[in-house]
């Protein structure tokens, strides 16, 4: 049984929600990279992680999305990543799994801004930092470029840990393409071929638009599907930015997504521990859906 098959033997798993907005509530300034808080304010990062553990997440991520040498030039990459995993581990305290988050490097391969070698070196360095603190799996998330993800998967696979890859579909008339134009079918087959252990979709749009994405990913490969939608489109009010989506409405979409083949479910931008709690309270029902 591969690593993830073992994880999923009792059914789909509940992941976590957004971190950035939670950290902002604790004082993170806009424009500041959240990753630096792993060193500056580890206790606040741990508070966010613990919020998800207590809400019922069976998997939590790490605050390491941008911790690569291309996005954060000059930063102590090894330390940011090691600390990020260590913080989530402490918060998990054996109650849930820790999947280490790796975002895009932030520069585009096709335009020649970075070379494939530079991207590979950045991923390898980040992953070495993550692995030093012992995560349970590695997650490449919010990807838009198949080539970049392929390089990431190759670097991640070398560790022997399970590798999950998640793309953001937010482009095109039907919002079913990545920014680079890739379809769910292209993503699923390319990632399966690259040797990923799971593939998925996160961010980009609200949960009400994820069902077709989930179905199409599922139909195009034999991998478990990872789904982390946004809370919905926010509204800008005089009081600030407000997400109108309420946790119960968000959670009401879970059964259909699980029926469509989602094996991992959580939330991205705009979601909070309340959203995870709402998903967890319906967990019995959605387990039944997934196995029926």
């Amino acid at each position, binding site marked *: 049984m591969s690593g993830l098959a073992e994880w999923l033997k009792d059914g789909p798993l509940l992941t976590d929600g957004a971190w950035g*907005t939670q950290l*902002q509530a604790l004082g993170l*300034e*806009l*424009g500041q*990279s959240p990753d630096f808080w792993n060193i500056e304010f580890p206790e606040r990062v741990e508070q966010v992680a613990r919020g998800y553990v207590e809400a019922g997440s069976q998997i939590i991520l790490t605050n390491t999305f941008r911790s690569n040498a291309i996005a954060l030039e000059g930063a102590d990459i090894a330390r940011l990543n090691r600390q990020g995993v260590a913080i989530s581990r402490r918060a998990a305290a054996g109650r849930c799994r820790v999947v280490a988050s790796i975002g895009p490097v932030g520069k*585009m391969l*096709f*335009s020649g801004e970075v070379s494939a070698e530079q991207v590979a070196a950045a991923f390898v360095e980040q992953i070495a930092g993550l692995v030093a603190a012992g995560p349970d799996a590695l997650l490449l998330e919010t990807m838009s470029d198949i080539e970049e993800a392929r390089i990431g998967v190759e670097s991640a696979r070398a560790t022997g840990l399970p590798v999950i890859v998640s793309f953001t579909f*937010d*482009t*095109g*008339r039907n919002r079913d*393409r990545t*920014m*680079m*134009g890739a379809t769910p079918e292209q993503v699923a087959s390319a990632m399966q071929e690259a040797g990923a252990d799971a593939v998925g979709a996160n961010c980009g749009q609200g949960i009400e638009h994820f069902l077709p994405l989930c179905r199409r990913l599922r139909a195009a490969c034999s991998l478990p599907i990872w789904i982390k939608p946004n809370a919905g*489109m*926010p509204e*800008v009010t005089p009081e*600030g*930015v407000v997400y109108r989506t309420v946790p119960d409405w968000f959670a009401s979409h879970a059964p259909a997504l699980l029926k469509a083949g989602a094996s991992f479910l959580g939330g991205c*931008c*705009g979601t909070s521990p309340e959203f995870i709690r709402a998903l967890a309270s319906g967990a019995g029902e959605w387990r039944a859906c997934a196995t029926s």
Partner: protein
Amino acid sequence: MADLEELREAILNGDARRADSLTREAIAQGVEPLALINQSMVPAMDEAGRRFECEEYFVPELLLAARAMKAALEPLRPLLAATGARAAGKVVIGTVKGDLHDIGKNLVASLLEGGGFEVIDLGADVSPQKFIDAVTNSGANIVALSALLTVTMPSMRNTIEALKQAGLRDRVKVMVGGAPVTQQFADQIGADGYSENAPSAVALARRFAGSAA
């Protein structure tokens, strides 16, 4: 004039080197700079925009076409300057305060340059004061604001307010864009225009440049 068609193709295919050499050849043969622009370059970018709308082109193809366009424009610059032709307009562009995302902004900047605009790119996480300084120093007539994060959208409003307070608001047209931005939001914060994607941002800037002239 096979050259003009070939140049159009080179730009459309994002072949910057070929676009540059074809332009130089055409110049050597005595082709008028404006003929090159109007018969090859502008049609190439219009076609790239059309393909983007039809989902035949995505960000990579569009960006490469814009770069090829810029490469083709380069050898024309001295000739255009000699004829007294001016840039279509001067645009100060940046991602607003608090937002580090610059891919969309870079794309719009490249397309604007390809469209003949002079572009002053302030980068990402740009404070209102930096926009004010850039407008003051450059005499730009258009300000383009980008945001990817919903939480940084209020920085667009703050930038427009700051331009007002600095007495610059009437001197510039302000256009806004980015994934979470909508026409409704643009209206709410008093922007002059909104565009849904990069090619329509260029069309919008052309309209502004036309109305300002």
